[in-house]
């Protein structure tokens, strides 16, 4: 008996502003596995992450996405989040006037409410976030500032991983999480992600470069080019891509 995939993407096509970006993408991730999607710039990597998260303007023109037995595409973005879908943004948005602590607690309790679970008390929340922030070397004082406002690129990425740790999703999509990170920050972020590996959690790591995958070892690597998955393999595929580049996957103009 084969294991049913936790996330199953079939023939997914997505347009943005009437322009077709994804064209029949297939991808399956079983529970407990970490899959990497690599590809050249403009291949549609961010489009895939936004389509899964339900960003307005990303129009699904064909295909299905089944998440934990449910039609993911039928759900509003906040309901997808409550079902355990988390996107670590390539460019995290600034939220002026809302302290990081307030924002994360609001998000956590909103998810609990949607799922019919009890809210997390203020002392429990503070205890938890202090521990998680310390592990990511985030100064607690920074959590009192408006989320991402005036934060450096590295601070924003660490704040994404802090939210990942606090919200404890079952599908973590990391969109170019390594961009803008120096080597120390990369290691801290990767440790944060590795701590989240679990048999009942699936992860999708989207990246242009192989260096993040030295720290987060994927079970499978997929190459996204021209709006679809054109090759899949084990971790060694990432090294081959690093050595050979994406040229051989580039689409020949019709």
């Amino acid at each position, binding site marked *: 008996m084969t294991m049913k995939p936790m996330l199953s993407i079939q023939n997914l096509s997505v347009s943005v502003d009437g322009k077709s970006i994804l064209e029949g993408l297939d991808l399956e991730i079983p529970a407990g596995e970490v899959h990497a999607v690599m590809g050249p710039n403009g291949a549609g990597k961010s489009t895939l992450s936004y389509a899964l*998260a*339900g*960003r*307005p303007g990303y129009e699904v023109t064909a295909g299905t996405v089944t998440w934990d037995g449910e039609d993911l595409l039928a759900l*509003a*973005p*906040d309901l*997808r*989040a*409550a079902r355990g879908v*988390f*996107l670590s*943004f390539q460019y*995290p*948005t*600034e*939220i*002026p*006037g*809302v302290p990081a602590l307030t*924002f*994360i607690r*609001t*998000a*956590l309790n*909103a*998810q609990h409410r*949607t799922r019919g679970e009890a809210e997390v008390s203020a002392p429990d929340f503070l205890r938890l976030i202090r521990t998680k922030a310390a592990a990511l070397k985030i100064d607690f004082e920074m959590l009192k500032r*408006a989320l991402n406002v005036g934060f450096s690129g590295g601070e924003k990425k660490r704040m994404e991983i802090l*939210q990942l740790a606090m*919200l404890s999703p079952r599908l973590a999509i990391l969109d170019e999480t390594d961009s803008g990170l120096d080597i120390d920050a990369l290691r801290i972020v990767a440790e944060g992600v590795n701590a989240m590996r679990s048999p009942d959690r699936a992860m999708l790591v989207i990246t242009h470069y192989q260096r993040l995958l030295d720290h987060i070892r994927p079970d499978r690597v997929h190459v996204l080019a021209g709006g679809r998955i054109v090759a899949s393999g084990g971790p060694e595929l990432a090294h081959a891509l690093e050595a050979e580049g994406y040229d051989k996957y580039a689409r020949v103009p019709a």
Partner: protein
Amino acid sequence: MSLARAIATGDVAQLPSRRDEAWRWSDLRGLIRVLPPASGASDAELPPGPFDGLADFEIAIVNGRGPPAVDLAEGETRRVALRFVAAPGAGAHSACFAVNLGDGARCLLLESYEGRGDGYVASADIDIRLGRGATLERIVMADDTGEGVSVSKTAVSLGAEAVFGQTVLTAGARRQRIETQLDHPGAGAVARLDGLYLLGDKRHADITTVVSHCGAGGATDQLTKGVVRDQARGVFQGRIVVAKGADQTDARMGHHALVLSDRAEVDAKPELEIYADDVLCAHGNTVGALDEEALFYARQRGIPEAQARAMLMQAFLAQVIDRIEDAGARGAAADWLMRQLEARDEF
């Protein structure tokens, strides 16, 4: 031409009209064809005002009737609630009031406009004088009805080293103007003039300020924020004049508004008129929609859309509330903002 004169004479030709540059977005002449009859005295019992419990004493001016002034002696400290009430059944009325602070006096002025009737037309003229080194923080909470017309015009003069702070909070009216004219002597005096408007339905609110820096070494800081939806209209007119010789003036003015529907409108006219050479003056003005990226980010974290909108709106507007010095008044203003946001989930 003014609303007060029109009420005094019963002559609608005295109403300011859109032909007056300063009234072009708040036309009264075109709105009021016939003035309602003069308001009578009201014997209805007055319910507690919005600043209940925060003041040492309360002055109520009901349908234009009440005491003419409050005076604080040199060095005296007072927390005063000043209530302008249009009682049920009110027609047209006007009032004049004066606030005089002696040297070094300190006052928290909690001013409210409470419209309880329907088609009332109300005018208030207020004269505020601060002696040398006096401090006044004025919170204006305008709680009119959607059928009322209300104009409040205040002239402020400051002594040297006086500190004046003002925050106007309004949910608008059928037509409403809250105007402040401030004569700034420089001389170490400091002025803050802030505003907050949240307008829905067909409501209108006009926050107008004119600050005239006449002497050297003065500071003015202004921040007004607003949200309009439905067919509402918000007006901000802010003018800062720096006269010749008023050097070392530091004046800043910001106005930022969110427009949440196609039929809502914000008209803004920030103006700096500078005749001195050595000054620091800046103004910023933005009118736009709610940040859709921030909204999606919040929703991706699991916050439902209506809650995410309210959170972002509250954060946008709360900056004005945070600038209120007095903790009690700040709390009352924060409660007011929450009430406005909760009254309409779509805000």
